């Protein structure tokens, strides 16, 4: 059963990733990204990271991709891109070769690398027969990683302020063309 779930989820995730890169239309890319996110969420569930799977679907598929779609629709850039045009000569073969080398390296590391560092866990175990995953994660975040957690709240506030500042139309810029309706 686990094998079937893993196989289906990883095929969905990898297929979605390919779709993001290969789709000509940005809207299709965004929808393919949702597919990958769901596949990865299923893989999270397979590995008993239940809270992260839920957050992945809510935050990524629910918020971030919707934001992407909003921007695509807002800017009207949903016309297809011509993938045949190559502005830099030989850039694509080089990119492919680089990616191939990186992938080979990762596979070799997985195959031959040593995983166990010997260090003891400082954050606590990931599995417990009684305590559910959400509680384990919450205990770790709200005790050991409390300072980092508080820092993320500051980060989010800064991001919100930055987005508002960026989206505000500065008065110094010349008046936009009248057909621009935003």
């Amino acid at each position: 059963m686990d094998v079937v779930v893993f196989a289906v989820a990883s095929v969905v995730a990898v297929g979605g990733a390919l779709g993001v890169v290969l789709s000509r239309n940005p809207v299709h890319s965004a929808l393919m990204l949702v597919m990958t996110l769901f596949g990865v969420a299923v893989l999270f569930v397979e590995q008993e990271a239940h809270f992260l799977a839920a957050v992945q679907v809510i935050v990524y598929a629910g918020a971030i991709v919707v934001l992407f779609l909003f921007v695509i629709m807002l800017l009207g850039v949903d016309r297809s891109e011509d993938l045949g045009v190559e502005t830099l000569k030989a850039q694509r073969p080089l990119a492919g070769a680089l990616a191939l080398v990186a992938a080979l390296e990762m596979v070799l590391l997985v195959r031959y690398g040593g995983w166990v560092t010997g260090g003891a866990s400082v954050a606590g175990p990931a599995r417990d027969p009684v305590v559910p995953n959400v509680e384990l994660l919450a205990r770790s975040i709200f005790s050991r990683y409390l300072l980092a957690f508080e820092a993320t709240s500051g980060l989010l506030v800064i991001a919100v302020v930055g987005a508002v500042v960026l989206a505000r139309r500065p008065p110094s810029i010349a008046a936009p063309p009248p057909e621009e309706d935003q």
Partner: protein
Amino acid sequence: MSIDASWYLAVGGIIFTIGAIGVLVRRNVLVMFMCIELMLNAVNLTFVTFARELDDIGGQVVVFFVLVVAAAEVVVGLGIIVSIFRRRAEATADDISMLKG
């Protein structure tokens, strides 16, 4: 639980590589941004895999923080893209090679 961790790591590696190719090859700024999200997701998958394999909740905590940072990054990045596109209506990264507006 029965599946070996190296399979998950392989899937993560494949998705990361696809995302890297996308960033290098595509010219649409929005699609490049989506490929960065792909790479972040691949790394999240490896973190969760190691959290299970080494029985350490720290990996999942890191993924939690990566999610927060990714959300902030998308908000600011898309804000920058919108403000760029407001001034020039071109969709490719080649046209915005200068920081000066």
